């Protein structure tokens, strides 16, 4: 009991630490650029409110995920007795924490979008040329939903426009202006991170996008329990994998394999769920069933991995001297 309490405290500490780091990073990342747009007062308050909510949800799921990973590496791997309890406890803590938070906040997937505040100043760089869809644009005098001056360079042809308006749709931003009685429009993707101010290589940027979309599936269902189940299944899967890979003669290898596994999991989790969903949606008519089967699959796979680990253990596959 005392040991479990120790594990609990360590786990909570890890969650808190990860949560703090991720939360601080996200808030900085999305609040700092807003500074230069001159947003203030009530408007800034509204933006802050949505930013904190979004960052909170992302930080929560990611910190639970990462803490469980570290828990598996540092605590569960070295546990020789009462292994099942040690395995199940963090899952229970996480489930309870997540469910309580969900009951309080009632999040849906739109709550996970950053940049929900429809303010053009956040999205576009002022007074500098940028590429979009093969054309170059130059915006001058960007307001909340207006752009005073637009210069468009379309295959060497230069056009000057005035008084463009910015419309915020579901996942695109439309910039429209009138030319000789006709409306012209250009659309920009709304939810890409820091569209014109990020200089990451495309491979990086793809990976970070995947990490950014990690949390979405945990608020997919209207049923909070199903969401909690998905989270628990993911955590269990990670712990089981951790437990499976134990190069006792060269612990660094276990660490490396697990580390790479986490990177890979981040990269494929969202995609794998979507692929699964596209198949399962046709197969099972009931949405709840579709949403339950995926976590169940993860849990079954995790259980199989635990079984394999048991066999390995008996066969001394990972054994040291």
């Amino acid at each position, binding site marked *: 009991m005392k040991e479990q309490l120790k594990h609990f405290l360590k786990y909570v500490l890890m969650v808190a630490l990860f949560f703090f780091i991720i939360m601080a*990073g996200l808030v*900085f*990342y999305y609040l*700092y*650029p807003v*500074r*230069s747009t001159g947003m203030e007062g009530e408007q800034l308050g509204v933006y802050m409110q949505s930013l904190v909510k979004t960052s909170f949800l992302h930080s929560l799921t990611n910190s639970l995920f990462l803490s469980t990973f570290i828990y598996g590496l540092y605590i569960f791997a070295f546990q020789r007795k009462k292994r099942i309890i040690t395995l199940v406890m963090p899952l229970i803590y996480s489930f309870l924490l997540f469910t309580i938070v969900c009951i309080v906040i009632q999040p849906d997937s739109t709550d996970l979008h950053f940049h929900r505040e429809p303010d053009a100043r956040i999205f576009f*760089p002022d*007074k*500098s*040329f*940028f*590429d979009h869809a093969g054309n*170059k644009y*130059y915006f*001058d005098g960007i307001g909340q939903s207006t752009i*005073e*001056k*637009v*210069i468009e*360079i379309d*295959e*060497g042809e*230069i056009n*000057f*426009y*005035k008084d463009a308006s910015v419309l915020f749709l579901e996942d695109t931003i439309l910039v429209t202006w009138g030319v000789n009685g006709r409306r012209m429009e250009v659309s920009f993707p709304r939810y890409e991170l*820091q569209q*014109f*101010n*990020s*200089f*990451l*290589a495309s491979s*990086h940027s793809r*990976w*970070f996008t995947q990490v950014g979309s990690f949390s979405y599936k945990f608020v997919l269902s209207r049923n909070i329990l199903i969401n909690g189940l998905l989270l628990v299944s993911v955590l269990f899967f990670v712990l089981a994998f951790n437990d499976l890979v134990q*190069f006792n*003669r*060269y*612990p*660094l*290898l*276990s*660490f*490396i*394999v697990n*580390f*790479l596994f986490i*990177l890979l999991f981040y990269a494929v989790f969202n995609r794998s769920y979507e692929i699964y969903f596209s198949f399962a949606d046709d197969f099972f008519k009931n949405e709840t069933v579709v949403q339950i089967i995926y976590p169940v699959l993860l849990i079954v796979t995790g259980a199989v991995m635990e079984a394999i680990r048991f066999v390995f253990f008996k066969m001394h596959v990972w054994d*040291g*001297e």
Partner: protein
Amino acid sequence: MAARDNLNRIYLKTWLTLGVIVFLSTVAFVILSVFGYKESLYHVTYRVSFITSNTMMMLIDNFTVIIIVAMIFCYSLVIGRSDLITNDGTSILFAQVVSRGLYIIIVSTILLFLAGEFLQPVLEKRMSGMRDKSAIARVFREEGDEAYRLIAEKNRNDNWKNSQRRKALENYRKYLEVIQADQVIEGRVRQLTSTLSIEEFNQSRRKRDVVNEEDTSIADTVVFHSDLAEIYFQKKDYITAWYYYQHVVESDTSRRALAKQRINDIKKILAFRDTMKEQGVNELWLDDTEREIRDIYRKKRQASDYRDRGKYQKAYFIYSDILAINPNLRDVIQAKNETFSILKSEAIELSEIESMRMFPGKKDFIFLNGPGQLVHIGRLVNRFNDYYFYDITITMFDDDNRVLSTIKAPYGHVKSSTMFSLYCYSLEDRSVEYYPVKNGVNLDDYMFMMPVDIGILYNFSYDYREVQRYSILRLFQVGTAMGWFPVLDRSKRVESGDEKAEMGSIGFNDSFIKTAILDKVSRYFLFFCLSLVMISIAWKFRANYAGSISMFHLPLLALVPVFVLFSVRLSQGLITSFYSVLSMSGNFMSVLGISIALNLLFMAGSIIFISTNRV
């Protein structure tokens, strides 16, 4: 003493591991470079040069990964439990074990800095130079080969074949100017030159001489027409002397009588010299000569009139016409050469700029030339610090974003770091001239100013990977030009108060450069911090001894470099995103301060992390 032996063994192992890993990576990079060599990009003669440069480039690019991998293997595998157990029972501390590794890390950080700041930009320049030269050489080679192939065609007359030979020869010579050693082509050039009579080729060359040689036997101090006339008279070049006396007759009243007398003398001498000819023919000839000289005089006046009006190409062609009649007229030669040098300094010659078109450059180059003026360059070629523009459009617009006027020009050439000319002339066809055109009217004022040095404009690239290879110094130069440092730039600000404001308004997003600087500085710190963290992790998770790993698990060791690569890339990616946001703030110096503080913080953190290892 026993501890000393153990330590010596540990240090030897450290160095050996590093040596083996560096050697293996070098071999791997050489192999990758050999297979990565593309003949379509780099000419065969550059093959070895490409392989060495590319290998060095890859070594620098992956320096962080190589050193960290070496350290991980060293501290998690190579140094085993037996190394820590001494004969006399004294224990060896982690601090002692790791000391040589730390030394390597510190030296490597310095090396990484030097390589990143000095070697990498040079290599980058060298490789892009090779790519440029290969591209141009390929064009010349293909043109030459095509002409060379056509020579062998049947049913063609000699004239046609000779023209193909000349074409092949010209292209091959240009090709050899770029690619010094190509025996096949050298052989072909020898063969072609001997086939074409040397005289014929020289003739074709002579025609293109644009600068005429002066008669050097006459001192430069002689400038008066009367003196020149007398000198040519004494030299028995009577026609030239006649021309100068005619000048005196027309312009110098005080010496008119004497000049007229001299002209009569010349006529007599010329008549006497040609006594073999019949009388009537001779007189006709003298009349023609007189008419010719008057014609020259008239043409010269016309040429200087053009020069005064800034029509240098027209003047240049008229001077050439005069020299075709009489190539000895010294003042005409001087005037022609002067006109040519003015043309060169203010404009670009058509065939020269056309020959530059094939070089690599940038498409759709655009910048704001101060408020209300947008410059769009369809294609911009940079060659040996010379910049050639094609299809230029300058659009003037007002505060309401209404277009006031546009200036269009097919060619442009940068004349100084902040000035370009949009006038292009031809030395082959006097009717071909390109002026910038505004609303259908040719502009005589064809020189334009730029707000920022063209080199900086050109090098301002939105390709972040490319910018990452710039040295910090160069990035700072760009920053200075963008007006980031008002304090450092005090002298400039005093001179022109508005300049700084205009620099910032060229329409470039300078947070790009800010991020690059912060990123580049941080990557040196990152290497140091990450190395310490990785050594620490390696030590915590070390194996008892190298042989303890089963054969079955050995291939998994390949995951170590993969792991390091991912960790490094991940950290770099996080740092880049962080700084890209941070650098959106206006003041660069404060951002730089934050970045350095953070780096020091990380450094302290990594030092604390590594010092938590005791044994």
